[in-house]
């Protein structure tokens, strides 16, 4: 043994409680008074190996390396910050203005760190924790407990443009015990606070999760009134235009993830509309954000514009836009006060712009065609006859033809989508493991899978796999030329509308309500959607649109019911007194 003295280690020896350490030939610490050899080893500091000098300059803590996986010291929130950065960069390439990143998302994130007491406040959570544990003065002897030299928070350094003001940590030299047994699953992490973070359960604090990064993105998009709806955002995630799954792959090489980090950063699910929507509201309330900029008539998110967009998307005649605008007017859902998100308001609630617009279109379809599996077909017969006779005129909209074209297209699309989902490769190139014990196994497993995949990939049909689609707000493309993709945009609604005095009304004068009675109990849903109770055409329309938005059919049905509730307010009040009236005459 080399009697080189090791002054950097200030822990007490487990055997004799002396603080006098030497370093053995293997680089392990041993106690010079009782010759007890620890598992800890002196680490080689190699600053030259760190590539990013900028980050290095900001965080002095980087110098310190660990035994299990040598890497930088980093905090969980920094990981989330990196994910947000990736996502916002992706949004920028999708055409979102640069202010979204530099001004909006950055300040939201800063506010989050402040509200969750992680930084930008007098007494950040980590510092407090460290102080209390330091007082306890319990020497512990695993590799894991010593976090000396942790000087700076790496916070915000990745927002390169912004000022990287970080709260200096009131660090102590005393080690603090995070965990008792090293290396066992869930008690270690590559990040400094991974274990502690996942155990943290503070009341009133919204903890960061990977799905919540999308909530952050959506909040920023909403603030900027960008032309991306929540369903668009999630579709872009699904199509791989916005990083979400395995984002940790793109973390700097030196940020090691394992143990608890796996549970925090590894995601094996697609984001779900309702979840992200809920998270958005939760987050906005937690951040205590003021009222968002008004959604006015010229905004993309205004129902009039979204309805136009979706009418085009699902291949319905442009003339229907007139009717959707009327419905919007009648129900008052085009008002800025209704549309604008105000988290501070008593009952924070944001409009599901996309779902609502689609619901309006469905209501209009019901007004025009009733969708009772009868009227729509007889109207189609009339339109078909007319179109045969008058081939030169602007064709009348034929619901049956539209159904045939849409059914075919949507079925094809659905099948492709399902196939792609079944073939999706979830696992990262950079596997995550739970403990050092586990590590070789996980890596080996990865290797096996890669090798086997290589073997089978030579046997796959040589026709190239469909190229990654370019991001687009539209999922369909309708043209006049292709009979399978007939475009109905220019078709007229004549034959469905009739003149009444000065104005036009619908031929059809009946209407049925999607929901007769709303649920008033304390459960969250207001209505249920039992498919078999409804007409075939209604089922088709609902499933078509809900697939477009990748939402559950029941939530679309609910939105339709809510719009109807606004239109037929009077009738609903009446029906309270006189229930069981299936069809009501339209009030218009």
């Amino acid at each position, binding site marked *: 043994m080399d009697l080189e003295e090791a002054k950097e280690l200030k822990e007490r020896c487990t055997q004799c409680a002396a603080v006098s350490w030497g370093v053995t030939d293997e680089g392990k610490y041993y106690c010079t008074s009782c010759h007890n050899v620890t598992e800890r080893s002196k680490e080689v500091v190699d600053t030259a190996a760190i590539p990013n000098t900028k980050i290095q300059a900001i965080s002095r803590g980087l110098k310190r390396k660990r035994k299990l996986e040598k890497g930088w010291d980093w905090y969980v929130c920094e990981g989330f910050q990196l994910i947000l950065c990736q996502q916002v960069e992706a949004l920028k390439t999708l055409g979102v203005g640069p202010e979204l990143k530099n001004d909006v998302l950055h300040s939201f994130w800063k506010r989050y760190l402040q509200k969750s007491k992680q930084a930008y406040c007098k007494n950040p959570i980590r510092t407090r924790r460290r102080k209390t544990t330091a007082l306890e003065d319990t020497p512990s002897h695993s590799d894991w407990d010593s976090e000396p030299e942790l000087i700076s928070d790496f916070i915000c350094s990745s927002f390169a443009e912004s000022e990287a003001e970080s709260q200096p940590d009131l660090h102590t030299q005393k080690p603090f015990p995070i965990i008792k047994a090293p290396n066992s699953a869930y008690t270690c992490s590559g990040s400094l606070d991974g274990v502690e973070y996942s155990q943290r359960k503070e009341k009133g604090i919204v903890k960061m999760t990977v799905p919540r990064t999308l909530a952050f993105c959506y909040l920023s998009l909403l603030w900027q009134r960008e032309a991306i709806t929540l369903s668009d955002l999630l579709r872009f995630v699904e199509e791989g235009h916005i990083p979400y799954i395995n984002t940790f792959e793109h973390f700097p090489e030196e940020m090691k993830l394992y143990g608890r980090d796996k549970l925090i950063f590894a995601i094996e699910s697609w984001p779900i509309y309702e979840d992200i929507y809920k998270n958005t509201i939760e987050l906005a309330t937690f951040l205590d954000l003021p009222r968002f900029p008004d959604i006015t008539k010229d905004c993309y998110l205004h129902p009039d514009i979204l309805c136009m967009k979706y009418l085009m998307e699902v291949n319905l005649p442009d003339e229907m836009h007139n009717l959707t605008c009327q419905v919007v007017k009648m129900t008052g859902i085009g008002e800025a006060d209704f549309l604008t998100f105000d988290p501070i308001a008593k009952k924070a609630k944001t409009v599901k712009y996309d779902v609502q617009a689609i619901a309006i279109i469905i209501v209009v379809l019901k007004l025009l065609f009733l969708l009772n599996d009868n009227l729509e077909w007889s109207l189609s017969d009339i339109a078909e006859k007319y179109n045969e006779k008058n081939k030169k005129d602007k064709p009348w909209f034929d619901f049956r033809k539209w159904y045939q074209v849409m059914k075919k297209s949507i079925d094809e699309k659905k099948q492709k989508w399902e196939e792609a989902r079944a073939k999706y490769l*979830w696992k990262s190139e950079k596997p995550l493991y*739970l403990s050092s014990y586990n590590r070789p196994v996980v890596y080996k497993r990865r290797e096996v899978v890669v090798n086997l995949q290589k073997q*089978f990939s030579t*046997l796959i049909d040589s026709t190239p796999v469909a190229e990654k689609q370019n991001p687009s707000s539209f999922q369909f493309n309708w043209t006049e030329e292709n009979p399978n993709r007939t475009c109905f945009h220019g078709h007229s609604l004549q034959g469905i509308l009739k003149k009444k005095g000065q104005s036009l009304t619908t031929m059809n004068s009946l209407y049925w309500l999607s929901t007769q009675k709303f649920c008033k109990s304390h459960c969250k849903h207001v209505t249920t959607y039992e498919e078999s109770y409804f007409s075939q055409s209604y089922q088709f329309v609902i499933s078509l649109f809900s697939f477009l938005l990748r939402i559950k059919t029941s939530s679309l049905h609910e939105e339709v019911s809510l719009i109807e509730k606004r239109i037929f307010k009077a009738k609903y009040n009446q029906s309270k007194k006189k229930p069981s009236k299936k069809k009501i005459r339209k009030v218009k």
Partner: protein
Amino acid sequence: MTDMSDFSELMRPSTEGDRMETCVLSGTGMHFPWLQKYLNSVLTERKKEKAFAQTTTECLSLMQQALLKHQWQQAAGYMHSYLQVLEDWDVIKRQAAPEIIWKLGSEILFYHPKSSVETFNTFADRMKNIGVMNYLKISLQHALYLLHHGMLEDASRNLHQAETWRYGDKSSSQEVLINLVQAYKGLLQYYTWSKKKMELSQLDEEDYAYNTASQSMLNHSWKTSINLCALIQIPGVWDPFVKSYVEMLDFYGDRDGAREVLTNYAYDDKFPSNPNAHVYLYNFLKKEKAPREKLISVLKILYQIVPSHKLMFEFYRLLRKSEKEEDQKLGLEVLFGVLDFAGCTRNITAWKYLAKHLRQTLAGNRLAWIQELWDSRKNWWPNFHFSFFWAKSDWKEEKTLACEKALVAGILLGKGCRYFRYISKQDHQVLKKKMKRMKKSVKKFSIVKP
């Protein structure tokens, strides 16, 4: 050998949650308002895993569909994605995966136009080493694949590797598999041996080569018998192994040994009931010219297991030769038993024997025997054998058969039965005498009196 399944990953978060939550629930009847929230978070954690699980389940079912439709390329595409299940965080699913992957993957590689023996070998070697429990099974199937492609040497090498494989406790629990691997190796050696035997039979005994050849044969048989005998001690159905082992023993004059093996294989209660075991023993004893009693006792068991076995006629003839009365009765039973099976309905030998035996039995005043056997059949035999349709088609296709059947029908059902009436009305030059005799016999013996 690296093993993956052995390193058990520690608990998953949801199970961890479950445990805590049951503690709370089982404790007292108190209400915890925060519990609901906690339960929800557990549920959402489960949901998190759902998409991955959905992907793999969906992928598996699509792959199976593609396989059913023989779309090997598509199936390979799905397999490419399905492989990720080997990295599933769910231990149970991950451990079940190698077997599925091996089965479906080997199927794809077997049929895929672009696949080759090398591809298959690489695949098998990779799969063998995922988890200890699969090594032997896959090795064995790999060897069978090689055999199928006529690569005996490679197969043998493969089996040899598997045979020497050991993995602590795990290997002892797979003893049967090791024995099976050895037995297959023995079977391969038997194949070489029997080839050598062929060569030897073509050589002159005085030839110089004869000695060396017979020496090497001896060597082979010694190795082979060691490989084979371990397996056939274990209860199971080991037909090809037993057969080749016995053949070798027999060749070297160890008749007692061979008889012992066969007797044990046929009579040991621990072994599953196996008709072939009795067939082998019977053939061996027959060759040995064993006494009739002995042969009858062996076939009696075979009769109980497979009453329609083609050896039953031999059995019947043996019984006929016996002087014992009960054997005669049993002979009748055997014939009825054979004819109970749809596959034997047009077996002329059976009908001929039956007609003759019935006549003799009745002549010997043993009506009770027949009635006993007929009682259980009289409800269904008329439609099964003696329908008008059969009468017509039998007469058209095989006149002698029709006559024999008509005689039996007449005896059992009387003159009035459809079959007999139809046949007796037919006019045929050659069979005239036969018909006359038939009518006479029926008149004399019919058990149904008009």
